[in-house]
């Protein structure tokens, strides 16, 4: 456990070095968020029908989405990808740690450090000037924080499954092209899940991805009451467990047939 903690913290600090990228990202995210906010404003004035969420809640949801965009499992660990390609992955095998757990630790750092760099300034600016609301209540705020931990674990489990898939070099990389669009759409990042057609609601909520974006954000705005935090956590953790088990199996199988090339 100590080894893993050290690994998370080392990667976390390494990823915190990319400050100028985060700053450039901040400008992009602000601009992008503003477009989304204006589009929703325009939609809301177009319809007198009652909507599944209020405009203020949607705006808050949008800013949270941009602040925590990189929590989504939208990419793999670049260093691991290079390592698999160059053969450097053999060093990883020599380390006195369980390989899956070590990579999982890296995934945790990958999903948190860049997000922190972006979230703090973005949320500050959005709260001051761009209509980001405070959490619905202190309980809602607490439920949000706890569910974000669940979201990070779930996202790291998915990220690590993609990492593990890289061991099968070509087919693994194909998975990394095809998976992100589905993750982004069904997490609620493009449109909050409550706006999806009613007939699709249950299916989308049962999928793992809503646990990364939609559930924590709706806890924040009070659209899901804090009393339902248990359901959200259960959903996140069950899916995390599934992804971890599958990931471990796949890794074991991948290592059995691994050929190391080059020297």
């Amino acid at each position, binding site marked *: 456990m100590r080894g893993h903690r050290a690994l998370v913290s080392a990667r976390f600090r390494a990823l915190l070095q990319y400050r100028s990228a985060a700053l450039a990202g901040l400008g*992009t995210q602000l*601009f*992008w968020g503003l477009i989304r906010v204006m589009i929703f404003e*325009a939609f809301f004035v177009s319809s007198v029908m009652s909507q599944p969420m209020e405009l203020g809640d949607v705006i808050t949801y949008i800013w949270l989405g941009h602040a925590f965009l990189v929590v989504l499992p939208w990419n793999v660990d670049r260093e691991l990808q290079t390592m698999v390609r160059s053969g450097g992955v053999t060093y990883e095998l020599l380390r006195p740690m369980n390989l899956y757990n070590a990579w999982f630790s890296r995934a945790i750092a990958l999903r948190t450090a860049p997000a922190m760099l972006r979230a703090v300034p973005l949320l500050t600016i959005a709260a001051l000037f761009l209509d980001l609301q405070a959490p619905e209540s202190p309980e809602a705020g607490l439920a949000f924080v706890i569910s974000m931990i669940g979201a990070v674990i779930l996202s790291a489990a998915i990220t690590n499954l993609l990492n593990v898939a890289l061991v099968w070099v*070509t087919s693994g990389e194909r998975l990394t092209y095809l998976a992100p669009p589905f993750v982004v759409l069904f997490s609620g990042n493009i449109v909050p899940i409550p706006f999806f057609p009613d007939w699709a609601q249950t299916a989308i909520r049962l999928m793992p991805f809503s646990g990364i974006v939609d559930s924590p954000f709706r806890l924040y705005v009070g659209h899901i009451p804090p009393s339902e935090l248990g359901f959200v956590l259960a959903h996140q953790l069950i899916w995390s467990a599934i992804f971890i088990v599958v990931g471990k199996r796949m890794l074991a199988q991948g290592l059995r047939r691994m050929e190391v090339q080059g020297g």
Partner: protein
Amino acid sequence: MRILDNIRVYLRFLEVSVKSQMQYRASFVMLSLGHLAGTGIEFIGIWVLFERFGSLKDWALPEVAFMYGIVNIAFAITDAATRGFDAFGVMVKSGDFDRLLTRPRSTALQLAGQELTLRGVGRLLQGLIVLVWAATALDLDWTVLKVLLVVFAVLGGAALFSGLLVLQATLAFWTTESLEIMNTVTYGGVETTQYPVTIYRPWFRDIFIFVVPLATVSYFPSLAILGRDDPLGTSLLFQYLSPAFGFVFLAATLRVWQFGVGHYRSTGS
């Protein structure tokens, strides 16, 4: 003759690029599918919102889809044909740009011909599907002139997006680094102008009319084709001619590029 010769060289560049990418056919197919899905979810998002709200101000889904199609096709063409400018920051950093300067062709031509990125075919296909669906769903009375305007708008849009990439690359002469912030006007521009610009707040709308004139290739020509009145009060003639601003913009950015090349200092090594 010079121009014809340049075009011939450019096509030859592209041919080589296509051949090399076709060596990895399966990878190409998967990348394109990924792109198709990646850009397709944007449209699913729009569809979801129209399902809920019915309309956007007084715009219906097929009308917005029409603009969406034009903008995405235009951007896909640019994305495929001017990749060299996109990766230009790397070239400046490594000093590879020096090599281009020694060749007897213009630098802009060589950069544009660097690579024809075929994976953009995903966005192109998606844009085409949406545009064709919109055109049939709208039940418009098509005239030759309107069809020509669609082509004009797409080409004008591709020119405008190319101009933006040229501008982004030009900045790298001074910053030696590609600026992510420019993505706000390229990718952000695609996002913005796939909706009618009149839905935005006036200051924001004006940016996309006067500064980065993307509205001239999506919004104004679409009004003419859809037969809608413009709340901004432009004339039909203006709407037909407005995609020309895309070409004007590209010409202007190429002048800025020339200026940048004049100020280029190699990073050495």
